[in-house]
């Protein structure tokens, strides 16, 4: 491999004058020496300073989440200087004249003060809120990336779980923050949360009374949520992010397969300087984006909603988008309630509000273990899979995304009704059926699509790619001319596992006796067949040989037309993978 010579080359090719480096090193070495004599960090740093990070745009998603959390910490601390987490009633006399004389909680008043009397306060409040949106959105997309590429497989299952818990904490943290200003919308959100808590069988009423320090709304929920919002949950998030990053460094990042990239190595840029510069620079871009949004895009204009009043509500009241699915489930649930022996059990609230979110999260967290059990695969995986090469997994996520989208739409059914002049009741009835039917259709469609993409890959490997040049044969028939793809592209396409379908009783124990495989073996065999049975496997070496042979014959017939007709495969750094995106060559 050429990598060793490349390492040497990298030193030579860095720019900069030798003289100044030498001088700096002298001073730098002194500082390092001073620190190392006390901390002894050089042993760890020696390995990590030049640690290799592979490069791909999708690896940036987690970084967006990380940096937006840092932005949240910075802007959040700024807000704490002025925010007063108190529900004591005060009368407002401030710069926002429209609310002058109104009675409101101190929390709401201090939010108005931050918005209208602290210079830059409104910008920071809006930055904080936008960064919160970005944080949760980036985590979700990052999670989808990890799922689709199989990056959660051994040895990274624990990081997958940490990530799932981070999303949950992020959503709870966002809800707590949304509730702090004590405006009409946040109070309505709390009212709904109270209703959901109360629906918990047996202990619900007690939970509600302990949360709110008595009957809703009480006067302690904002201070309590404040503690959770600025100390408890950020602390947990910080600890989990630290664990997430440590595991990332320990496992080393996954990479896409390709020439020179194997399960045993990791190819990319060194931490110092390139990765550090790119990641550090990216922090400023995320921070700057939040600042621009905070200055230019209004979010949560609480002064328009007014202070919370339990007897008031606005039409079209919507929670922040990440609560959308809970909201959607709550809205389309049929009105089921059971009265038994003097007790009330509200399925209509308890199921969508508490049971389903937990079930959904558990399903997501359990997936790596489910998949590993079905495949029986106990090896480590460091090369990513293209989504198409795991059709069932991909289809599952896309189906889940369609469910998410539907519930989200259901959560805004009133907005949809107004927007498209539809009947609200019809939308709801439609959604009640759609959440069961559409994800299934999406699943089937996505799986088919993946498999046809796999087939297309094999076509490319065996017959080359379609050039778009139509040939007319001496007999008058028309055909499209195919050209072979480059060796690198061909290698990249074949660098994946063959799926093996588990057959019940196929396991053999040490003595060579067939092992029945336990009670669940039948289920496992069925799942395995379902997950991998339809997949298209890559061609074997012989099939490839034959394919090339065939292509050469065809080529001889087409002699006269040269490669100059199409140059895509030779255009330098361009990889064949991208070709599919360009409409399939």
């Amino acid at each position, binding site marked *: 491999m050429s990598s060793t010579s490349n390492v040497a080359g990298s030193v030579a090719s860095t720019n900069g004058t030798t003289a100044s480096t030498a001088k700096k090193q002298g001073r730098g070495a002194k500082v390092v020496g001073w620190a190392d004599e006390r901390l002894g960090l050089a042993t760890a740093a020696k390995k990590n300073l030049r640690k290799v990070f592979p490069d791909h745009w999708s690896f940036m998603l987690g970084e967006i989440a990380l940096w937006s959390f840092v932005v949240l910490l910075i802007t959040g601390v700024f807000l704490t200087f002025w925010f007063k987490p108190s529900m004591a009633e005060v009368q407002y006399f401030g710069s926002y004249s429209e609310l002058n004389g109104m009675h409101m909680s101190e929390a709401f008043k201090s939010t108005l003060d931050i918005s209208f009397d602290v210079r830059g306060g409104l910008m920071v409040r809006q930055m904080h809120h936008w960064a919160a949106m970005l944080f949760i959105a980036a985590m979700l997309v990052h999670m989808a990336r990890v799922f689709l590429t199989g990056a959660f497989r051994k040895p990274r299952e624990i990081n997958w779980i940490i990530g799932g818990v981070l999303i949950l904490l992020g959503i709870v943290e966002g809800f707590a923050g949304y509730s702090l200003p004590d405006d009409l919308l946040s109070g309505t959100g709390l009212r709904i949360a109270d209703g959901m808590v109360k629906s918990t069988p047996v202990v619900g009423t007690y939970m509600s009374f302990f949360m709110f320090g008595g009957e809703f709304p009480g006067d302690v929920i904002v201070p309590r949520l404040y503690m959770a919002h600025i100390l408890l949950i950020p602390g947990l998030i910080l600890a989990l992010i630290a664990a997430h990053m440590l595991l990332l460094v320990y496992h080393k990042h996954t990479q896409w397969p390709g020439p020179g990239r194997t399960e045993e190595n990791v190819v990319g840029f060194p931490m110092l300087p390139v990765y550090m510069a790119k990641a550090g620079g990216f922090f400023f871009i995320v921070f700057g984006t939040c600042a621009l949004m905070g200055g230019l895009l209004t979010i949560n204009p609480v002064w328009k909603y007014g202070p919370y009043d*339990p007897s008031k509500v606005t039409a079209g009241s919507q929670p922040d988008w990440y609560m959308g699915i809970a909201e959607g489930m709550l809205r389309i649930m049929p009105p089921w309630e059971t009265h038994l022996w003097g007790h009330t059990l509200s399925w209509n609230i308890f199921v969508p509000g508490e049971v389903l979110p937990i079930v959904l999260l558990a399903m997501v967290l359990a997936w790596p273990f489910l998949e590993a059990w079905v495949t029986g695969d*106990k090896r480590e995986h460091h090369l990513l899979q293209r989504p198409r090469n795991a059709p069932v997994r991909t289809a599952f996520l896309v189906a889940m995304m369609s469910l998410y989208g539907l519930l989200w739409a259901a959560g805004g059914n009133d907005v949809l009704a107004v927007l498209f002049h539809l009947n609200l009741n019809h939308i709801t009835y439609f959604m009640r059926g759609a959440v069961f039917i559409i994800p299934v259709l999406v699943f089937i469609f996505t799986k088919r699509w993946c498999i046809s993409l796999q087939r297309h890959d094999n076509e490319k490997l065996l017959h080359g790619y379609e050039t778009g040049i139509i040939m007319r044969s001496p007999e008058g028939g028309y055909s499209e001319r195919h050209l072979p793809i480059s060796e690198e592209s061909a290698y990249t396409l074949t660098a994946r596992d063959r799926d093996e379908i588990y057959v019940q009783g196929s396991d053999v124990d040490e003595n060579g006796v067939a092992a029945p495989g336990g009670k669940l073996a039948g289920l496992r065999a069925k799942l395995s067949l379902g997950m991998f049975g339809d997949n298209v496997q890559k061609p074997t070496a012989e099939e490839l040989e034959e394919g090339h042979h065939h292509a050469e014959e065809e080529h001889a017939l087409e002699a006269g037309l040269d490669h100059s007709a199409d140059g895509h495969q030779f255009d330098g750094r361009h990889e064949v993978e991208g070709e599919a995106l360009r409409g399939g060559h």
Partner: protein
Amino acid sequence: MSENHDAESSNNLPAPIEEPIANPGLAPHKPRPTDIDPRAERRAERQVAAFFIASMVCAVLFCVAYFTLDIKDETDTFIGLGASNVALGATLGLALMFIGIGIIHWARKLMGDVEISEQRHPAASSEEDREATLAALSAGLEESGIGRRPLIRNTMIGALGFVGLPLIVGLRDLGPLPGKKLERTVWKKDTRIVRDVTGTPVRPEQLEVGDLMNAQPEGLVTPHSEEIEKEGHSRGVEYLEGVDLQVEKSKSSVILLRMEPKDQTFSKRSPENWSVNGIVAFSKICTHVGCPISLNEQQSHHLLCPCHQSTFDLADGGRVVFGPAARPLPQLPLKISEDGYLVAQSGFLEPVGPSYWERDSE
């Protein structure tokens, strides 16, 4: 991927990929213009510096905007955003962005762009390390004697369990016990109904057919007119404030609606004598999860909750006609007092608001 990877040691090895095409190895590095052309290199250097300078300019502009632009009542200026807010956001945003763009430009154009390769190691420790750890662990446990002394072990586990009790019991004072609080509101016999905003009592003839009014029990709204307040005090009305007021508003708020008596459907849970000349009063608190209900469909006497669109028919005992709410809205029995105002015959006969476990009524 079948079970033949079972042998302990091979478990942690990465999956070898069966390769029909041999791995061609890392592609040779292609130099960038900045690697070979000194002019391109200097140009890139100047560009990076320009970004950093632009950032400094923006940071200074931020300070200028901070001290020169007024923020009072911001929303009036500059498309509702406020001049100061826009200027501060734009200058800070650009100051940060330019640093980021500068650094990334530097990394892409001038820092080494040679990909290097590093070996991976299995996540698991070496076999020896693992054995040494297990040996240390069992030696430690052996020396503690925890296995040999079940009495100590079991009492310790017991003690650790019991120490959990103070932690849980300590949370008891987070709030009072529910008791019957959720079943009560301030409504009782002869409580006057007052307008939500002004706090004035309501006479039946003040409502036209089709009128909808947000109302409260007297005592929840401090009347705008001091005379009425004084008169209220003279009858012993207490005006609530602070938490008590908020709690009571979240339970006692009602809606008054006047309709043609012929449109009404009466039933056991909504008898005829609970309404006055087609005027009915219902709890305003949704029986789903407790939002205040507000949207009225004029012709149908339907009332819609804006939170999850449960719809209630006020002409038919508050029946749920649509949506996730499972129970009708509780109705407040009305009558006319001797001095001609609308008052309650009694309090609500069932708890208002969302369901809860101890709720004992259909």
